[in-house]
């Protein structure tokens, strides 16, 4: 039997709210897997006390979480000799055209594998166009560089060696320099049957890059079942992170780094900032498609506490500011300060361990 519909004028704001929330729930459920709906039954709803956004302790089910824990370094099966050789190459300034730059110049371990500058200096005397992304966990990065290249780590290393803004040295010249160095010759000989070769240089650096793994962040421990690894506020921050939609782009093992996204959906962050540069055009510079203007790789949020300043142009000097900008341009609203604080608390749980030590 069809129920008689309640006349509109009888419904108050509360009734409309219930009806609309039910519809929204249906809208979300359209694309939600059955098992996650089942797990929702046990959710314990409570108000965040700030905006009314619903915060709940989900009784974590890793199968439906958007973020996955980093693999432990031991499971990566790295070759220690290659890693050591790669690290030496990575840190060696004598391998650049002017002998003053190394990969390490912009990627320092104690600065989250960045240099914590908005724009790193380049070998040509001018600053780089884009903020230096972290190299921690680059082995798990699905897309490389701000333009989201699908290439292997060795090829990226080669591109940096050859780039006029990188180390500005051609690979054959690099091989000659290495061959002329007795120590390198011996080190390469100990690892590779054919000694110093371009492919071996790339392979050793790539192996070192893969070793830049920072597992065991408090959040990873939480994902692995240690519910005490996060405080209540940090868990609330994570919940807000998901409810504000941040996890629709910042997801996967690296909490980003696997997709491209525009620098703003609601408004244009770059136009509002002013002084637009060619580098601000992002993926457009690679494809020439108008739809790719201002589109960049979504950055990883792992070790984000250490990799300031933020955004592709390094214009956000604090995490609070970065989250605020994201709220404004990705959601079209000003996030309450209390919610920003909770999200930042969660983000700070993403700092991991390197070589067994907390970063």
């Amino acid at each position, binding site marked *: 039997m069809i129920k008689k519909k309640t006349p509109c004028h009888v419904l108050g704001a509360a009734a409309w709210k219930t009806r*609309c929330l039910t519809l929204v729930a249906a809208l979300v459920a359209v694309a939600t*897997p059955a098992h996650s709906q089942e797990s929702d039954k046990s959710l314990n709803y409570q108000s965040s006390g700030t905006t009314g956004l619903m915060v709940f302790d989900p009784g974590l089910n890793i199968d439906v979480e958007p973020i996955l824990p980093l693999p432990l370094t031991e499971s990566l099966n790295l070759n220690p000799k290659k890693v050591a050789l790669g690290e030496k190459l990575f840190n060696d300034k004598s391998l650049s055209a002017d002998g003053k730059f190394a990969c390490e110049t912009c990627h320092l371990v104690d600065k989250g594998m960045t240099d914590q500058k908005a724009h790193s200096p380049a070998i040509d005397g001018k600053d780089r166009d884009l903020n230096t992304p972290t190299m921690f966990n680059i082995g798990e990065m699905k897309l490389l560089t701000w333009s989201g290249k699908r290439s292997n780590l060795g090829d990226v290393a080669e591109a940096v060696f050859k780039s006029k803004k990188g180390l500005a040295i051609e690979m054959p010249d690099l091989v000659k320099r290495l061959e002329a160095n007795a120590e390198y010759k011996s080190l390469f000989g100990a690892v590779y049957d054919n000694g110093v070769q371009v492919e071996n240089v790339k392979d050793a650096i790539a192996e070192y890059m893969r070793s830049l793994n920072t597992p065991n962040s408090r959040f990873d421990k939480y994902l692995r079942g240690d519910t005490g690894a996060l405080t209540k506020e940090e868990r609330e921050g994570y919940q807000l992170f998901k409810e504000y*939609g941040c996890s*629709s782009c910042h997801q996967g093992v690296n909490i980003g780094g696997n997709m491209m996204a525009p620098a703003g*959906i609601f408004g244009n962050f770059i136009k509002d900032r002013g002084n637009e540069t060619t580098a601000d055009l992002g993926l457009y510079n690679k494809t020439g498609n108008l739809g790719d203007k201002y589109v960049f790789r*979504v950055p990883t949020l792992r070790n984000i506490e250490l990799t300031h300043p933020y955004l592709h142009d390094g214009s956000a000097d604090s995490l609070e500011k970065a989250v605020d900008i994201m709220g404004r341009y990705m*959601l079209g609203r000003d996030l309450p300060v209390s919610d920003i604080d909770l999200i930042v608390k969660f983000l700070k749980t993403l700092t991991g361990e390197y070589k067994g030590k907390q970063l």
Partner: protein
Amino acid sequence: MQKITKPLLVSLVVIAVATYVYIMVQPGKLALHNKSIDLLRGLMQTNAELNADIVKIRQGALKNYDSLEVNLRKLEQKVDQLKNGEGKIYKLGDSDIDEKLDKLAALIGNKGDQITTFKLHNGLMRNSLDYLPGALNDMYQEELKGENDEVLHRRIEDALRFTIMYTIKGEEKWRRDALAHINWIRRVAVEKPRNLKLALRSFSDHLEVVITSSEKVNDLINTLSDYSTSNTENDLYRSYMNYYDRSLRQGSPYTTVLYALVLLLALYIAIRPLLKKED
């Protein structure tokens, strides 16, 4: 002494020839053939996994994009191995295989571009979908609290309902209706107090993002899940098997030699007693 040495030498030569011919008769590159077959089957399996993950992501059953990139990389690596690595089937003298492998490489490259666009639009859709429950709750707790405009309430509900219908069914009718309500809400919002105006605008904008993005995502899923890649993989597999069969048959001179050798030996054994009698 000579009586023993001569037959011994003859038998050694016969054994050497027979062994050589036997080795040549074997599908000598069997290990490489198996590798090629593994790669070709792996291509099909990886492509199937990739397509399944795309659908899972659209449904929300998979909440991250890592596997898409992992499987895409696997496809590229397998094509590269078939072209240049162990198990290579490229440039072996069969233009049909070369053509199909080139076509497959181009299709995978194209698929990669489409996956980039798919992730972008699906991300935008999810961003708004995830945000809407909280935004609506906020709006009812604050800006819409005490608002007695029944028509506005109904329009909000209808805009939501039609957006849901469009997201589920993808039919133009629902999109048109949802957008009509969204635009009505935008027009009415202008006359409302500032906070309510902003909240209604934001709500409408997010619904529109859901509609626009789901339209693009659905179009991309149709393109991504078409059969061109899997059909080309099947065609390539068939072409390679035809090539392999042909090359096996072409390898038959050695089989003929071996067969002839066996016949000669049999004949020799048969006539040897007669020859001895004559002696």
